[in-house]
């Protein structure tokens, strides 16, 4: 078998193994651990959204927490006033995230690189402050409580057990993962990579590059919104802290650890970040953030292209295809 084929088979096998483990988890670990895995999946969905902008399109962002928050609160409001059906909340939260991105995106689109990063940081901070102040909508710093248990599909009983909520979150995650994977293989996905690679040339080839970047921004906003709705379903509570600066920073960290541009890398990076902060942090009494800093430095030194960059062939050994 050719090396390419071997790699494809290995990738399938690893993917299948991961899926089997994910499906078996509720039988293997306790309720607290399973709710942590749910949070990892939500965070991985957010990291995939950040990766779409930062890794694929080349727009480093610290603002996806804002659209995550919009989605989370939208999910909470829909669940208490309109419908406790998960997919309904999910679609409306994604739509709200996309809409928020469409309104705020044009401001950020004026810049690239570090300036873009700073504008998105401002967007994230504004969202955080707004969540704490808009008492009538968000119940301010008290947080939005009283979210009913999620109903995965009409006619099914609400999911109250952590293991079942986990399956709902897992199903949504796999759906989003599949959709983004499809997007990245499409002509549009190639155009986004073209923006990262050489935006001037892409324009000369006939692309209105800002329109493409804005479209990517809205799609990433929808993804973050959907992740927010997953969060609300899993936690049944939303507070301003859920969309703070650390959420945005950790999502960016997860993407860098995973390797820019890689979806599975971003997902594994998200798992590492959450586990380091919530589990290992417990062993050194509140020094989770310090551990994250160490993790970041180790990754940047040992694996400059992140987890996903390790198994990629080196430039010099590029084979003639």
């Amino acid at each position: 078998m050719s090396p390419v084929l071997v790699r494809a088979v290995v990738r399938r096998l690893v993917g299948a193994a991961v899926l089997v483990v994910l499906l078996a988890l509720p039988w293997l670990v306790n309720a607290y651990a399973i709710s942590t895995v749910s949070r990892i999946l939500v965070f991985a969905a957010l990291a995939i959204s950040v990766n779409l902008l930062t890794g694929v399109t080349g727009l480093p962002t610290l603002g996806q927490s804002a659209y995550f928050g919009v989605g989370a609160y939208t999910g909470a409001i829909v669940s208490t006033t309109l419908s406790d059906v998960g997919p309904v909340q999910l679609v409306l939260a994604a739509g709200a995230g996309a809409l928020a991105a469409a309104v705020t995106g044009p401001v950020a689109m004026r810049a690239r690189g570090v300036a873009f990063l700073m504008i998105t940081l401002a967007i994230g901070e504004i969202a955080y402050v707004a969540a704490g102040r808009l008492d009538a909508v968000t119940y301010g710093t008290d947080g939005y409580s009283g979210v009913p248990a999620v109903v995965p599909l009409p006619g099914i009983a609400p999911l109250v057990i952590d293991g079942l909520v986990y399956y709902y979150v897992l199903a949504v995650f796999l759906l989003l993962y599949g959709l983004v994977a499809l997007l990245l293989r499409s002509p549009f996905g190639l155009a986004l990579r073209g923006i990262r690679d050489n935006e001037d040339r892409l324009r000369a080839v006939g692309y209105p590059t800002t329109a493409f970047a804005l479209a990517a921004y809205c799609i990433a906003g929808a993804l973050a919104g959907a992740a927010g709705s997953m969060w609300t379903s899993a936690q049944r509570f939303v507070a301003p802290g859920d969309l703070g600066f650390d959420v945005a920073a950790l999502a960016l960290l997860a993407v860098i650890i995973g390797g820019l541009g890689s979806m599975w890398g971003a997902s594994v990076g998200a798992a590492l970040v959450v586990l380091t902060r919530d589990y290992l942090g417990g062993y050194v009494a509140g020094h989770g953030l310090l551990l994250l800093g160490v993790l970041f430095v180790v990754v940047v030194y040992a694996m400059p292209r992140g987890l996903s960059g390790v198994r990629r062939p080196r430039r010099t050994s590029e084979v003639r295809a």
Partner: protein
Amino acid sequence: MTAALELRDVAQHFGQLKAVDGVSFSVAAGARHAVIGPNGAGKSTLFALIAGTRAATAGAVMLDGEDVSGVPEHRRATLGIVRTFQHSSLFLASTVLENVLLAAQRHAGLSWSMLRPLSRRAALLDGAHDLLQRVGLDERHGARAGALSHGERRQLEVAVALACRPRVLLLDEPAAGMSPAETARFSRLVTELPAEVTVLLVEHDLDVVFGLADTVTVLHLGRHLLTGSPTEVQASSEVQTAYLGAVDSSELFPEAPT
């Protein structure tokens, strides 16, 4: 018959420096038209003005009799004005094939398509492979553009431009750094282009210019010196003085440092 491309008093000033200073000439449809001139004549700047990379300080660029001066660069590319770059400007992290596909999918109207994978679009892929075959790069289609040699990048540059289905093709020193064999292949490629494609070419290699061009425009210090047939240009004493440096070039630098 209207000219495919017409320049009317096109100018680009950078402060005191008049890089392009009121240049007018027209390029007949289907022409193989070369622009030559010594270094600093304003050739590359002129190309940037025609393609829309830079907005002209003054003057008008006409495509098929219509003023496109206010049209942004990406729109001009879809209207058919497509350029290559003097210093190869490619998508280095993408493969050779993807470089061509990026251009081809845009001009096939597919660039907004988000769900069907590229790998299932046989017509687009076949077209891209054909194009790579024509420039002699098809066996390298899976290599990253960043791994190509200089000469191969020049060939890919041309392939990307051709994938845009140009009506007016602007080639900025396409043969610079090509080996003689690559230059010969490139010349044959331009000769074999369909007659309806108008080619405007900046080139330093005068053998390439006089081998390909049916019309030659000479620029000097940002000004239009002469447009004529290759024989007229070769016979012109004005052109010879410009190239041999009899004209005082100190006017390029009004306040030249000592």
